[in-house]
């Protein structure tokens, strides 16, 4: 080994990297931005736990002649916690808000709650959770049950303790669903988006570096035909990939699902068509394959962090929520979760489908117009 040769080699590498300003910027800036964002959203103060209360408790009359409604006392006790906010609702309303994500759990107090407690019989109380997020579905009832138990004890400092039995009901999925079951749908969407983006980005770049793009433009082919041609060509592989990932996840990894797989497949297809065009669009701003890879932190990572994969979109602060709404993966995640875990059908996910289609068309127009900018 000769020192001079070695240092020439190292010096050349340094010069090359230094000259690629974008790489240098990305090496330093991207990790900071990503870590900052990740730290921010993971430590986000998600506000108080929002609970719904469906009070059917009729109460009872004490031997002293006073009337008591235990449900009301418990709600007042819960409300005294800063981190808990309880809203009185009827069951239908409460379940709707649970599905919409504005409530974390709903407490259903039965008619005979007070009566049973006073008579020392089994007093049952129901906690309803949404269920499609496995972590939340297990943690929320557990924590809430503990608080309720404590408060029930505190209601009667003297005399026999109030023995509350708590049942948990899941609107969807349930306790037999684990972490993988609830995250598989969004992982599938992510993989499809990621690989299609990378593949198109790199192969479209190659079209320019090997000179064939210039040759194409010397034929009567239009820019729209080029973009659409790419979309159909890569779209085919994206669909095959979607099908393979989907079937593998369901039949080999054996995740639980209830929905219509054909619908999931269509949603993945729409997502992939958009990814093809986003790949074309970004590749026109890259000179090398390395620079295509450098778009991952810009295109892919924010979508991982904000599309509901890490933190529920409802819990994000306003600005980030708006950012999330500009990302196709957000809609794909929501719709695919709706279908696979909630068992929703076409009519419920039609809006998300239309939005994904709009993203695909928008990206197509964008990619076709950037093609125009290249030579003229």
């Amino acid at each position, binding site marked *: 080994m000769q020192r001079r040769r070695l240092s020439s080699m190292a010096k050349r590498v340094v010069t090359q990297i230094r000259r690629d300003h974008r790489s240098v910027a990305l090496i330093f800036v991207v990790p900071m931005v990503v870590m900052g964002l990740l730290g921010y959203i993971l430590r986000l103060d998600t506000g108080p736990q929002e609970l719904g209360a469906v009070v059917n408790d009729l109460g009872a009359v004490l031997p002293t002649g006073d009337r008591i409604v235990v449900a009301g006392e418990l709600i007042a006790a819960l409300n005294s916690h800063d981190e808990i906010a309880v809203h009185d609702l009827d069951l239908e309303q409460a379940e709707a808000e649970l599905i919409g994500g504005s409530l974390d759990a709903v407490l259903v107090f039965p008619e005979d709650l007070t009566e049973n407690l006073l008579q020392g019989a089994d007093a049952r109380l129901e906690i309803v959770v949404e269920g499609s997020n496995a972590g939340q579905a297990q943690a929320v009832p557990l924590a809430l049950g503990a608080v309720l138990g404590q408060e029930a004890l505190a209601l009667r400092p003297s005399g026999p303790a109030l023995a509350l039995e708590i049942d948990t009901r899941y609107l969807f999925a349930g306790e037999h669903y684990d972490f993988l079951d609830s995250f598989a749908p969004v992982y599938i969407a992510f993989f499809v988006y990621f690989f299609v983006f990378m593949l198109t980005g790199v192969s479209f770049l190659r079209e320019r570096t*090997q000179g064939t793009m*210039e040759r194409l433009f010397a034929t*009567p082919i239009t820019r729209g035909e080029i973009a659409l041609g790419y979309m159909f060509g890569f779209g085919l592989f994206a669909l095959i990939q979607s099908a393979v990932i989907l079937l593998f996840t369901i039949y080999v990894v054996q995740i639980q699902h209830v929905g219509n797989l054909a619908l999931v497949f269509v949603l993945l297809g729409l997502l992939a068509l958009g990814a093809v065009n986003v790949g074309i669009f970004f590749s026109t701003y890259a000179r090398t394959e390395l620079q295509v890879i450098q778009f991952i932190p810009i295109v892919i990572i924010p979508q991982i962090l904000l599309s509901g994969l890490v933190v529920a979109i409802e819990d994000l602060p306003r600005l980030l929520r708006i950012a999330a709404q500009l990302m196709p993966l957000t809609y794909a995640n929501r719709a695919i979760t709706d279908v696979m875990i909630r068992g929703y059908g076409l009519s419920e996910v039609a809006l998300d489908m239309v939005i994904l289609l709009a993203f695909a068309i928008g990206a197509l127009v964008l990619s076709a117009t950037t093609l125009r900018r290249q030579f003229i």
Partner: protein
Amino acid sequence: MTNTAAIETKNLSKAFGSVRAVRDLNLVVREGEIYGLLGPNGSGKTTLMRLLVGLTKADAGEMHVLGRVVPDTGLLAEIGYMTQAEALYVDLTARENVTFFASLCGVYSDTAVDQALDLVDLLNRADDIVAKLSGGLRRRVSLACALVHRPRLLILDEPTVGVDPQLRASFWEHFRGMANRGVTLLISSHVMDEAERCDRLGLMRGGQLLAEGTPDELRSRSGTDDLERAFLLLAKDEHAA
């Protein structure tokens, strides 16, 4: 004469930043002739060709190609363009490349593809992946892609770079044959023995035409028998003037 001009430019100009690649260029290429563009690297030959094909937009001036105003996408089906770079899909076979470019110009016949491959003597390697072909063979594939749709005008940017003398001779035989059938060829080169085979030559330098004429005219004008010397002398004259 003007109604038989395949290419006609008037005061054509194109600059890239401060570099004026083409300056007030007036060029007429007649139908059915082989017009050779000669000039050193950076003299504007490639930019002129890219302007004619519509790959870059002129800053000023007019261009008429085959009687139509450039840019015109419809025109492109009648032009065959070969770039200096190979511009091939290296993971496809030679035949697949030629078939693809033929189809873009509206030619879908296998016989046309076979004929183009035959013309560049590639039929026996037609089904090889381009990545496995040598540089010279790739040039042949590029040429086949440029002429497969039987264009009326061929614009060839240094088509014989990296091509061995034997094949170069056969290329030029084909060029002459096509010109005899009425095809117009605009060919850039800096090889003087190729210049000799052109009907007319244009000497380019600094984005302008320094001199133009048949090889004989250029020789007599500069008072030498050697085309290479003629070119150097003419370039010097213009520089002094």
